[in-house]
């Protein structure tokens, strides 16, 4: 590949700065796994099947935060998808000219905003609204379903965190869905209208073509909400409580780390256990984003122009 000598020199000159990220990834994996190893050796599988946070007696079990993280992310991605899918279609198909520009600008702004603003807004405004108008109603009507079986007390819960994170990743998901949707060749659309399809039927056709890419953007959105920290801390309720009910306060792994890391040095294994938690979400999110990116690349190459 590298033919001339000069090209070779250029390649080697560029190499050191370019490999920073690669080195950091290796370092991250080394650091996090070597520190995690301490407590994995001591506690073993107990860390992943029990639920306890008692540093005074050096007893730890991470099942509640891990399940909390996963269920929060599932709720987040469901929320984000049900808002982002119609929004992307609306922008791509029904808006033209100036209004289209305004709408996409608003979404771009949304995507760039720091999550701390969402966290603040969600804990002050969104959680009370969700509690009074969504959680209470679901509880009073459907409390026989285990998911809705507990009375929302403060409103700070897995459900609140999921919806808040979901709203914050809407712009991200919209950007990915729109990109996929717009990369479908125009010929498909022309063909649909050409045989007299209505707009609804055309959109249905295009969405079905974009399906793999939409799935990929959901996977990437899931990975992103798994690592979300600030919004989770502000809305999840922060308690080591394991329950099938999504209206109960709980923890996510990143919220646990954010609130316990500062004091962890006081105890022998608390810090190490937090690194185990980080290792779990890191592994899941890197695997998922790799999977998501692979699906998108495959879909692109298969798309017939």
């Amino acid at each position: 590949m590298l033919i001339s000598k000069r090209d070779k020199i250029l390649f080697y000159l560029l190499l050191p700065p370019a490999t920073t990220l690669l080195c950091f990834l290796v370092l991250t994996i080394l650091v996090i796994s070597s520190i995690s190893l301490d407590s994995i050796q001591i506690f073993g599988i107990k860390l992943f099947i029990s639920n306890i946070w008692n540093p005074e007696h050096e007893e730890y079990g991470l099942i509640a935060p891990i399940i909390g993280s996963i269920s929060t992310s599932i709720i987040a991605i469901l929320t984000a998808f049900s808002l982002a899918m119609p929004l992307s279609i609306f922008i791509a198909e029904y808006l033209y000219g100036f209004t289209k520009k305004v709408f996409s600008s608003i979404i771009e702004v949304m995507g760039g905003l720091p999550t701390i603003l969402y966290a603040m807004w969600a804990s002050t405004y969104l959680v009370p609204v969700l509690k009074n108008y969504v959680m209470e109603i679901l509880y009073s009507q459907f409390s026989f379903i285990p998911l809705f079986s507990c009375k929302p007390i403060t409103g700070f819960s897995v459900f609140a965190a999921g919806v808040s994170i979901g709203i914050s990743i809407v712009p991200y998901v919209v950007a990915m869905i729109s990109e996929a949707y717009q990369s479908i060749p125009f010929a498909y659309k022309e063909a649909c209208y050409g045989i007299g399809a209505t707009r609804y039927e055309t959109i249905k056709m295009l969405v079905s073509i974009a399906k793999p890419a939409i799935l990929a953007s959901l996977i990437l959105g899931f990975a992103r909400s798994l690592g979300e920290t600030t919004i989770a801390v502000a809305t999840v309720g922060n308690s080591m409580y394991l329950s099938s009910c999504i209206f109960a306060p709980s923890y996510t792994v990143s919220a646990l780390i954010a609130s316990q890391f500062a004091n962890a040095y006081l105890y022998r294994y608390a810090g190490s256990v937090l690194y185990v938690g980080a290792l779990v979400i890191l592994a899941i999110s890197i695997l998922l984003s790799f999977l998501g990116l692979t699906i998108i690349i495959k879909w692109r190459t298969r798309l017939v122009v």
Partner: protein
Amino acid sequence: MYSWRKVKDRMFFVLILTISILAITPIIHMMVAVLANGFPMILKAGWGFFVKTPPTPLSQDIGGIAPSLIGTAILTLVSLPITIVLALFSAILVNEFPRNPLSIAIDVVAKSLASIPTIAVSMVIYILVVVPMGRFSALAGAIALTIVALPYAYTYISTVLGSIPLTYREAAYSIAMSRWKTIVKVLLPIAKRGFAIGILMTMARILGETAALLFVVGRYRTATSISIIEPVDAIPLLIFDYILTPYPIMQQIAWASAAFLLLIYITIFIAIKIIVKEVRL
């Protein structure tokens, strides 16, 4: 004459419109709420907002956010140039030698790292920088921010470089310019405006990052520090800590800081829009 298909088409439109409005309402409400809550507090704090230290639970005066403001400025000034340079080199390497296995690895890693939980970055930098140094520092914070922002900057810059038509490169080679000269004299100047946007977006990313700074900068806000090896604070951290306290005076300064942050973001965004418009001309 209305057929069932046309009715379905209309119903679909109404559904899409309703959900779209529903999707965009929270954000509009958020921006309005932050400005409505925070702006009066900025006015209440007056110039003190930029020069005083934050209030304690019992203080009467709303104080200011000088330590956090200076901290954020230091962190941004240190990490932004490093991020951009590293991202630029990575992007050039991948763009020039796209089939090399190392380039492919860099590309994949950069894209996957964009969704790495930023709190994990904070934990790693804590071990790699804070523990050996023996204290929290702006330096550790800047390194953490660089790691967080690098994938974004890289993705953006490589998109810009990749979108330059191949004909420019062919033209440069045809007059016997070397690869390096082509990059510096032809490709980079063409992508100038794209880079400007990339730098602004990276800056926005760095300014608002909270989780990556949690365990590395020390949240030192009782006085203003301008040294790079001393502990500092950042505006998002101040908001993060103060919004969860029960004291009204601390919540007020948190709202004021949030409004200030939002105003900076809106400014950056308008700047980006102006640059984009110039590109079209």
